């Protein structure tokens, strides 16, 4: 059984070769995947075009449920984006070096899910062509966006987060791009030459690189927390029952990390299987990720309980009504499914046997994300459909147009990711080298210490049992 995170004896040339070869010669399966994604996007694009020309009514949104799946999916994707930051930035800061083989695709996932998420607030607008009115620009009309609106905050936060995480991804990739440059031919050579910005691995570059990367990691952690807190304030800042909850920001952040980690497990298994990255995406690393996910799942479940308890013991009758409706009303199947997927299923991650069984983990991680998507839907829809004013209670099933867009967003994310894995190294080569180098060094030092102690050092050995 493999216990080491990585084979320390692996040759650096082997690392280069493995990773670089993953970027070449796409197989049939790849093209099929691309075709599927494009078809999904076409679905969504057609749906959005239909909405654009006819109006939001074709979504079967209605008075008073005016947001529906779009905003739920928006939060879902925003949540998904937190994985990259967590693995990369937090683990970087705490020097958990097992992140190194897997952080690259996680960061890419961050950026791409943000690019997916950002589309939803745009297409949900009744007049999406006037989107730019949310931006604070100087105009002779003397009008500005409303800076008090959490939606305007969203706009700022997502822009900042997208910029920062894309830069973070890019900066961290520069040394790898230099490797690609040195090994590529044709258009790839040109592309990598431009993108690697003349990286030569000089001590000066490394020195600045190290500080920059650390500082950006420092920025990204509070940023990620603030972004999802702001997204949660879309709801928490309102006065609607079931939304006006103090614990929403941590609840959202936990949910975000949760779905992000689950998605990392999914993609981990996919990449490992298709690119034969068994040497880098090892079972012990998967296990660590799974444990982390389990911890977050428990935190999420706890926050869920807090929310229920706070509502239950509070005196907001309407909020209680909404909660009760979630338990028993028209949304209850989805609500209970969410609780099952979100709080019960993660116990599969607690068992080593299951953790090490890839097909199981694949299915579990997918279901966890289904649960997380349901969670977002259960936040948005029940409150809208069943809020303060009983006369406005109504539940209508979302139309196919809505589902098509939600469905298509996965295609869009998938396509971005597929392009990414073939154009950019999805495993960080230089960091894996670092990891191997440092681990081997540490191992050798340990060996040396043991040897030293046994042979020449007269001091009492700690591991000798005392008489």
């Amino acid at each position: 059984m493999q216990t080491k995170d990585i084979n320390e004896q692996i040759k650096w040339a082997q690392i280069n070769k493995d990773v670089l070869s993953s970027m070449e010669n796409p197989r049939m399966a790849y093209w099929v995947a691309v075709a599927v994604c494009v078809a999904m996007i076409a679905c969504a694009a057609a749906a959005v075009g239909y909405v654009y020309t006819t109006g939001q009514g074709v979504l079967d949104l209605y008075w008073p449920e005016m947001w529906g799946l779009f905003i739920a999916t928006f939060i879902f994707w925003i949540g998904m984006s937190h994985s990259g930051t967590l693995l990369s930035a937090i683990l970087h800061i705490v020097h958990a070096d097992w992140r190194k083989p897997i952080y690259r695709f996680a960061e890419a996932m961050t950026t791409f899910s943000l690019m997916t998420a950002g589309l939803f607030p745009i297409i949900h607008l009744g007049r999406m062509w006037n989107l730019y009115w949310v931006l604070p620009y100087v105009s002779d009309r003397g009008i500005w966006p409303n800076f008090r609106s959490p939606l305007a905050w969203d706009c700022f936060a997502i822009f900042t987060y997208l910029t920062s995480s894309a830069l973070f991804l890019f900066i961290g990739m520069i040394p790898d791009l230099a490797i690609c440059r040195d090994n590529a031919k044709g258009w790839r050579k040109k592309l990598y030459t431009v993108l690697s910005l003349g990286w030569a691995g000089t001590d000066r570059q490394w020195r600045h690189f190290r500080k920059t990367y650390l500082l950006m990691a420092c920025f990204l952690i509070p940023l990620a927390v603030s972004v999802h807190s702001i997204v949660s304030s879309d709801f928490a800042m309102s006065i609607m029952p079931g939304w006006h909850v103090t614990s929403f920001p941590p609840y959202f952040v936990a949910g975000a990390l949760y779905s992000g980690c689950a998605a990392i497990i999914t993609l981990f298994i996919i990449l490992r299987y298709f690119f034969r990255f068994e040497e880098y995406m090892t079972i012990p690393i998967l296990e660590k990720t799974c444990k982390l996910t389990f911890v977050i799942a428990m935190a999420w479940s706890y926050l869920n309980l807090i929310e229920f308890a706070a509502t239950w013991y509070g005196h907001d009758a309407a909020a209680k009504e909404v909660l009760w409706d979630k338990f028993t009303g028209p949304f209850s199947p989805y609500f209970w499914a969410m609780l099952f997927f979100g709080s019960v299923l993660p116990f599969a991650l607690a068992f080593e046997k299951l953790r090490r069984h890839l097909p199981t983990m694949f299915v579990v991680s997918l279901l966890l994300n289904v649960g997380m998507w349901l969670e977002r839907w259960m936040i948005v829809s029940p409150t809208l459909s069943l809020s303060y004013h009983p006369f406005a209670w109504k539940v209508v099933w979302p139309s196919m147009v809505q589902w098509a867009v939600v469905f298509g967003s996965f295609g869009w994310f998938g396509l971005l990711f597929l392009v990414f894995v073939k154009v950019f190294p999805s495993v960080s080569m230089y960091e894996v080298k670092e990891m191997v180098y440092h681990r081997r060094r540490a191992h050798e030092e340990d060996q040396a210490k043991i040897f030293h102690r046994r042979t020449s050092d007269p001091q009492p050995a700690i591991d000798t049992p005392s008489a």
Partner: protein
Amino acid sequence: MSLKNILENWSHYRRGIEQGGHHKYEHMWGMALDLNKCIGCNACSVACYAENNLAVVGHDRFAKNQVMHWLRIERYWDEPDLDKVSDSTSQYQEHGASFLPMMCQQCNAATCEPVCPVAATYHTPDGLNAQVYNRCIGSRYCSNNCPYRLRYFNWFSFYESSWPAPLHLQLNPDLTVRDKGVMEKCTFCVQRIRVAKDKAKMENRKVVDGEFQTSCQQSCPTTAIVFGDMLDPESKVSTLWRTHQVELGKTKQAKQNRELRGYRVFEALNTEPKVMYMERVREV
């Protein structure tokens, strides 16, 4: 947009309404609605359709609740078990129905306003909760944050189907016909307010109480709706609010006589609605 401006007037801009912030009200249009008199006949609602170019959406869209009635008359039954007969409940709705005409409550602390990302909804110096159609981008956040659910969204270009020629000749040119993707709601007939204010200004006087009526008020056969300026202490509406000891800025009314009928819907939410209802009366 000048830095000088904020630096010089900093303390002014940091003052809230309690410290006499910059918002000065010219008027404060409010309403009082007597549920003892309201018979739920729909005249106000249809008058609102006629006055405010409200779109007729048709059966199929109504089925999906994609409706545009700015003034809806809600009907509630007293007996809770509507479709069951049991010993514990009465066999009939013996006290009739409860009717509640709901139009935009023009809250003074409106929850819809601060959430609009483009400031398309804001508070006017008339104390009205305004909706600027041409600024609206249709995020629908305002509706989602309205506890009364009194905002209606143009799900389609309703004008294409609602007024086939020559029905479109009926459209009121004093206000905009809304296109798809914008939010709309009761305006307290702002076009009538505007005409009355303009007329008063042209004659260099103040608007007189009762000089104009909102469309719903005008049609109400039982005169259940009273509308006017709440800043004018002599106006009918402020007299009614005073008699019923309802104050605008309170979440819980400190009534000396607890039996007075005036109340506001969801007062405790601190939205400061400007429509006061007077409780329904039944003999038994």
